[in-house]
């Protein structure tokens, strides 16, 4: 927290001292060409290259540095007493890169387009609770919800919910026209995409004149590019690479807590995992700090008690403790009718490099509690559609999402991505209650209760939340020490 305050103070100071400086210098970053030829600038499409779109476009609401929703295109918002009707007031005098003024129509168009089943956007479920979107006047948007949802603004901070100009659905994938701090000069996903400063950006002209986003598919090549000074920022660096950078006088490293997690999931609708006692036993015999140390290094992540909510999230449950309890696990297994322990098969793969290590650590740690683990390595190809959600015990990983999304998308009964097939009306009721609650403290209490419930009954072992190492060259200044979608790119500077 102290570090964050320091960064903030420095950012504020430098922001005032060079407030009137012209944009200058080029910032170079990379992306992994994850979508190949399907790469697109449509922010809500499957092939979105967010490293480009998040600099070209703006959301209604952005995640603030404190994790709470902060104004972006919407200057303010309010809800009715039941949290079923929301009104967003837009910022005045915002212009798209093509010179057109932003109006409520653009917002309505963007969100309706995402909701249209024909668009087939992967973000559609995220705003499925919105039943009506209307422009009240040029700068006011009203949304009606099918159910109460107190955290709607937080939901709208998703990096894929960028506002695009009205009727640009067919062209946005190549034009990339938005209201963001940078404008598109060239989009070339396998080569170098070029963005230039948008002097008319509503929070002031950016500090760098140009951003180059270079497609580099090989992880090692990306590291070499950073070391050789061909790119300036590289998130997701390993422990070993971090050490390398810390020794270099041309590089620095930021450590960022993220909501990205790795774990093991048990299919709660098949035997013996349909018994909550077995599920708890399978998780309580784990020595979490030791597992973290083996997989990512003792400071490579943050452990919790099987909550999917990240350590940086305002709703994270922190009061639980879950030290390794072998005797407790044995007792629960005996109660459930397995006095001699159980045999399980864990399927792992190198889809995520660290999975095999976690699986092996698990095998060793739970052996003492009479849980005999057989590890089976399966190919990376087809893992998500032939193994995950199909077999009884598999490895899993999730990227950062707000508490409500994490709990609802992965654990609510019947949800598309409910990988553990966890189906418990009591748990779902807690989530519904939280969504209805407009008072922050009461809402937080409900979300925490839901996380507690998962610790007692859940079927997912959340091994740890990843702490990211963001490497950068020393020429990069004022880079917010937060996860990538919260960074205010218009404040970043480069020195030469």
């Amino acid at each position, binding site marked *: 927290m102290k570090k964050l305050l320091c960064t903030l103070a420095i950012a504020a100071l430098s922001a005032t001292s060079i407030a009137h400086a012209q944009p200058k210098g080029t910032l170079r970053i990379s992306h992994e*060409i994850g979508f*190949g*030829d*399907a790469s697109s600038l449509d922010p809500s499409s*499957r092939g979105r290259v967010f490293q480009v779109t998040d600099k070209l476009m703006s959301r209604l609401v952005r995640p603030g540095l404190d994790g709470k929703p902060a104004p972006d295109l919407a200057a303010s918002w309010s809800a009715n007493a039941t949290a079923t009707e929301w009104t967003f007031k837009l910022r005045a005098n915002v212009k798209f890169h093509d010179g057109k003024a932003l109006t409520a129509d653009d917002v309505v168009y963007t969100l309706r387009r995402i909701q249209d089943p024909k668009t*087939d956007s*992967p973000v559609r479920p995220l705003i499925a609770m919105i039943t009506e979107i209307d422009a009240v006047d040029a700068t006011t948007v009203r949304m009606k919800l099918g159910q109460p949802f107190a955290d709607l603004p937080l939901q709208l901070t998703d990096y894929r919910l960028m506002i695009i100009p009205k009727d640009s659905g067919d062209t946005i994938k190549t034009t990339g026209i938005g209201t963001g701090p940078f404008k598109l000069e060239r989009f*070339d996903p*396998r*080569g*170098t995409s070029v963005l230039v400063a948008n002097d008319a950006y509503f929070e002031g002209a950016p500090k760098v004149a140009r951003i*180059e986003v*270079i*497609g*580099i*598919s*090989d992880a*090692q*090549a990306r590291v*070499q*590019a950073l*070391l*050789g*000074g*061909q790119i300036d920022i590289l998130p997701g660096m390993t422990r070993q690479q971090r050490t390398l950078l810390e020794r270099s006088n041309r590089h620095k490293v930021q450590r960022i807590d993220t909501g990205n997690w790795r774990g093991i999931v048990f299919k709660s609708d098949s035997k013996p995992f349909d018994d909550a006692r077995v599920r708890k036993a399978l998780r309580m015999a784990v020595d979490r700090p030791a597992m973290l140390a083996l997989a990512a290094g003792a400071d490579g992540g943050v452990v919790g008690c099987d909550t999917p909510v990240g350590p940086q999230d305002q709703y994270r449950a922190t009061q639980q403790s879950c030290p390794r309890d072998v005797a407790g696990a044995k007792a629960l297994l005996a109660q459930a009718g397995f006095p001699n322990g159980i045999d399980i098969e864990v399927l792992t793969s190198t889809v995520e490099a660290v999975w095999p290590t976690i699986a092996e650590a698990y095998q060793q740690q739970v052996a003492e509690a009479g849980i005999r683990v057989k590890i089976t390595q399966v*190919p990376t*190809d*087809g893992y*998500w*559609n*032939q193994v*995950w*959600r199909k077999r009884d015990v598999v490895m899993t990983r999730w990227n950062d999402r707000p508490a409500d999304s994490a709990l609802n998308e992965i654990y609510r009964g019947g949800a598309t*991505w409910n990988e553990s097939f966890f189906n418990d009306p009591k748990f779902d009721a807690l989530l519904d209650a939280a969504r209805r609650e407009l008072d922050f403290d009461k809402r937080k209490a409900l979300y925490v209760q839901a996380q507690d419930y998962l610790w007692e009954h859940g079927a997912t072992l959340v091994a740890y939340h990843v702490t990211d190492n963001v490497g950068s060259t020393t020429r990069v200044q004022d880079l917010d020490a937060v996860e990538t979608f919260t960074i205010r790119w218009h404040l970043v500077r480069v020195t030469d």
Partner: protein
Amino acid sequence: MLRLILRRLALGLLTVALVSAMIFAAVEALPGDACTAILQRDASGQRLDNCRRELGIDRPALPRYLEWAAGAVRGDLGVSAHNGKPISTLVGDRLKNTLLLAACSLALGVPLAIGLGILTGLRRDGAADIAISTATIFAMTIPEFVSATVLIFVFSIWLGWVPGIVTASASSPASAFFPGIVLPMVVLTMVMTAHILRTVRSSVIEVLASDYVQMAILKGVPYRRLVLRHVLPNALLPAINVIALTIAWLLGGVVVVEKVFNYPGLGNYMIDSISDRDLPVVQAIALILAAVYVGVNLAADMLGMLLNPRFRTLRSRAR
């Protein structure tokens, strides 16, 4: 002679056809398909069915293969399963880049290897021979990804003379690849030098020991003239086949080097297409590579026959 060429050509075409069938079968056998590669976690139910129908991969493999093969014979390689762009354009850019890298490496490596091969052959077992031979064997045996990493570390990160990776896109003009192309060029040269060098060296030694060279020496031919007129023309012949193999390898087998240096060539594209399950592209590249291998070998054989009348007569007599 003509019959021989035609026969070799027919055999070559058969090889290419077999390779394409094998590649198709191999990619089919991999778990997952283009749709699971695109959709990842969403790959299930209606969405998966729709995607498969759109890409036409819901039909059995055999008709799909035959359809593709018929198109390929007509010179139509089809369109990429992912973005619908014609494969000839997509692959054409990469082929151009791979050719550029191959040409640069050959321009650096072949004269170097031949020169060193002659030198070591003439100075057999001398200090120079031992030093150069050992060094090139070392250079060859170090895996490309190791030498690439070491070179990047020294020349790009430490000294900062050349960029460590190529950041130009596939469709950039050739000039955009300099100076990024220098390191991959050097790595490839390191690997290929030893093969050519050793062939040249042993044939120089062999020719030096032959009767006609001995005769020339006894006749009192000056050393320089002896080497240039009598030794070299005969010693370089066997090198043609090795150089041909090297060309074929450069065009298709440098996947690792292209990947490490982020070079937008054919090998890199092949790997990406395999992981995307973009079958039409994989097929097209495999076809091109097979054709290159067959073609280059055929050309080398022909060249050898043209330069050396003995090959022709021996073969036709044997028939």
